[in-house]
C-alpha cells in the first residue's frame, strides 16, 4: 500500500510540475484586445479617411497595437496609427504600404497599465482598406438578431512576451473580480487543490484497499443484503 500511495503522490507531483512547466513556456504577447474575432467590416477607409475606437480601458501595459484589415488581395495602403491616452500621452506610428491584408502592427511606445485610450487609423495611401471588427457587447450567438454597429478590432501587444507562470499573481487578482471571494481565498484554494486533492484521494485509497497481509480483497458479495432472487451479475 505504501508503494501505491507513493505512486499516487508521484503522479500528482508530476502533474503539478508539468502544469508549471507548460505555464513557464506559455509566453504571451497580447496584453488586451477588443473586437475579436474580427469578422465584420467596421469601415471602408478611402484615401485620407480615418476610423477611431475610443474609451478603451487597457488594464495591462503595452507597446504595440494591431488592427485587422482586408485589402482585396492587393498590397495594402500605408496607415497612420494614433494612440491617445486620457492621461495626455499621444503616440503615432506608421504601417508601411505593401502588406497583404490581415493583421498589421504598429509600434507606438510604452503605455502604462490601466490607461484609457483611443486608437485611430488613417489611410495614408490611395487604395481603399477595410478595417474589421465586431459589434461590442453582443454575444456571438446573438449577432444575427441585433443592429449594433461593428467597431474596429484593436489588439494591444507587449514588446516582450510574459509567461503565464509569471502572471500567476495577476491572474489571481483578475480571477477575483466579479466574484464573492477575494484573491486570498483563491490562493488558498489553489494550495488546497494542489496538496489537498491528492492527499484526500490517498486517504480514500488507504481506507479502501485492504492490507496485503489480509490476503485477497473482500469477496464479491452484495453491498448490504443478500440477493432476493437468482439474477444475473456482471463481473462476478
Amino acid at each position, binding site marked *: 500500500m505504501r*508503494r*501505491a500511495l507513493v505512486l*499516487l503522490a508521484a*503522479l*500528482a507531483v*508530476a*502533474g*503539478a510540475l*508539468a*502544469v508549471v512547466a507548460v*505555464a513557464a513556456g*506559455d509566453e504571451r504577447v497580447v496584453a488586451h*484586445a*477588443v473586437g475579436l474575432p474580427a469578422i465584420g467590416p467596421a469601415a471602408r477607409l478611402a484615401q485620407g479617411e480615418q476610423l477611431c475606437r475610443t474609451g478603451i*480601458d487597457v488594464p*495591462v501595459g503595452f507597446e504595440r497595437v494591431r488592427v485587422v484589415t482586408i485589402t482585396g488581395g492587393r498590397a495594402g495602403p500605408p496607415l497612420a496609427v494614433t494612440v491617445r491616452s486620457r492621461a495626455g500621452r499621444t503616440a503615432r506610428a506608421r504601417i508601411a504600404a505593401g502588406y497583404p491584408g490581415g493583421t498589421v502592427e504598429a509600434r507606438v511606445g510604452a503605455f502604462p497599465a*490601466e490607461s484609457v485610450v483611443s486608437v485611430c487609423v488613417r489611410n495614408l495611401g490611395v487604395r481603399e482598406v477595410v478595417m474589421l471588427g465586431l459589434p461590442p457587447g*453582443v*454575444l456571438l450567438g446573438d449577432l444575427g*438578431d441585433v443592429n449594433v454597429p461593428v467597431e474596429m478590432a484593436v489588439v494591444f501587444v507587449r514588446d516582450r512576451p510574459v509567461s*503565464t507562470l509569471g502572471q500567476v499573481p*495577476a*491572474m489571481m487578482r*483578475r*480571477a477575483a*473580480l*466579479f*466574484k*464573492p*471571494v477575494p484573491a486570498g481565498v*483563491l490562493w488558498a484554494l489553489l494550495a*488546497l*487543490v494542489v496538496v*489537498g*486533492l*491528492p492527499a*484526500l*484521494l490517498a486517504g*480514500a*485509497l488507504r*481506507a*479502501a*484497499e485492504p492490507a*496485503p497481509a489480509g490476503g*485477497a*480483497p*473482500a*469477496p*464479491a*458479495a*452484495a*453491498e*448490504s*443484503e443478500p*440477493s432476493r432472487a437468482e*439474477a*444475473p*451479475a*456482471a*463481473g462476478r
Partner: protein
Amino acid sequence: MRTTRVPVPLRWLVAAVLLAGVSWALLVPPWQAPDEDAHFAYVQTIAELGRLPHDDGRRALDAAKSTEQDRAELASGYRDSGQRIEMRPQWDPRAAARWKAEAATLPASARKDGGGVGRAGGNPPGYYLYAAIPYLAGSSAGIFDRLYLMRLWSVPLLCLLVVSGWLLAGELVGRDRTAQLLAGAVCGLAPMATFVSATVSPDALIYPLWGFAFWLCARIVRRGPARREVVALLLLVVCALAVKPVSVALLPGVLWALAWRRIPLRAVAAVVGLAVVVATLAVPGGPRRFLSYLWQFYVPVDAGTNVLPQLAPWPLRDTWLEGTVGAFGWLEIRLPWWFYAAAAAVIVVVAVGALRRIDLRRDAPLLLVFALPAFALIAGLHLTEEWFLVRQRSGFTQGRYLLPLLPVAGAAVAVAFAALPVRRRAPVAAVGLGLLVIAQFASLAAVAGRFYA
C-alpha cells in the same frame, strides 16, 4: 433500527470531489459555461416573478434576461468574451468598481423585467426550482454573489453523482471498496463532469438522477423488485423528466428492469430494430441523408471535407471524445491532442477489461439496463441533430450530453478493476486516481490560462 454508516473511503472521496467542485465553481468567470446565462435567467424568473418563463410578446432577445443581468454581463466582459478564445473577460478593477456603483443605482424592477423564453425556456423547471433556493437565500446580495451561490449549491449534486457511481459499482462488483472508489472518482473527477456540475446547469442534477436510477435498475434486476426500490426508481424517473426531457431515454432501461423476466430478448431486439427502421424513415431529410450524416459523424474518411459544415471535422473525436473528456468554457477551451489520445486509450483499456468479464448469456438482462438508455440517448441525440441540420441548418450535439452515462463508465472501471490480481490492485488504483488528479490539474490550468492570462 439499522443505521447506514458512510464508508470511510467514500467520505474521503466526497471531500476530494467537494474541493474540486468548489475550485471549479469559483474559477470559472460569470456565465462562461454552456448556456449558464440562460439557466440563470430561468432561475431569476422563477425567483423574482414567481412563474416560469413564457413568451410575453416582446422580442425574444429583449425578454430573455433582466436588465440587471444584461448590465452585469456587459460589465463583467462576458458579452465580449463568451465563446471567443481570443478575448478575455473584464480584468480591470476599475470596471468592477464601476459595476458596484451601477448596481447600487439599479431599481428593484431591474431584476423583474426578464421572464421571456430564452435558450433554456424549453426545459422543465425541476433543476431551476432547486437553484432558486440559493438565489432567494442571497436575494439581498449582488447578482454575482447570487450566481456563485447557485454554483456552489450545484456542487453537492456532484457529490451525489459520486455516491451513485459508488453504489452502482457496489451492486456490480460487491463490497470491493477500491473498485467502488475508482468508480466514484471517475464520476466526480472526470474534468468535464466536475466543470458542468459546478455551474448553474440542469445537467448537474440530471447526472446523479441517472446514476441513482441505474443503480436501482441494477438492484431490481439482480435481486428482484422490492416495493421500496420500485417506488424510489419511479420517483427518480419522474424527477429526471422534470429536469430535462432527455431523461425519456431512461425509460427503456427502467421498463426492462421492472419487467425483464416477462420479456424475451428476441422481443427487445425486435422492438429496437423496429424503432431504428421507423426513426430512420421518419427522420427529416429522409433515411439516405440521415445515414450520410451518421457516416460523417463516425467515419473519419470525410474529415476536413465534411459536406455538413455545421459539424466538427470529425464529430466522433471532436464532439464525443473531446466534448466528453474536457471542453470547457463555452466548449472553446480544449486540451492538447495527446491528452484526448491518452484518454481514448484509457477508455479502450477499461472497455476491453470490462467486456472480458462479461458473459453475454448470463449478463444480458443486466447489460440491457444500461445499453437501452445509452442507445436511446445516443439515437435521440442523432435524430435531434439531424432535425436541427435539416430545419435550422445548425448542429446540436455536444459531448456533455453523454455524461448522464458517466456512472455506467465508472461501473465499467469497477468491473474491469475487480478482475485484477491482488498484487496489482493498489498500484493500478493509484495510477487511476493519479491520472484523475493530473486531468484536474491540467483542466483547471487550461481554464485559468484562457480567462486570466
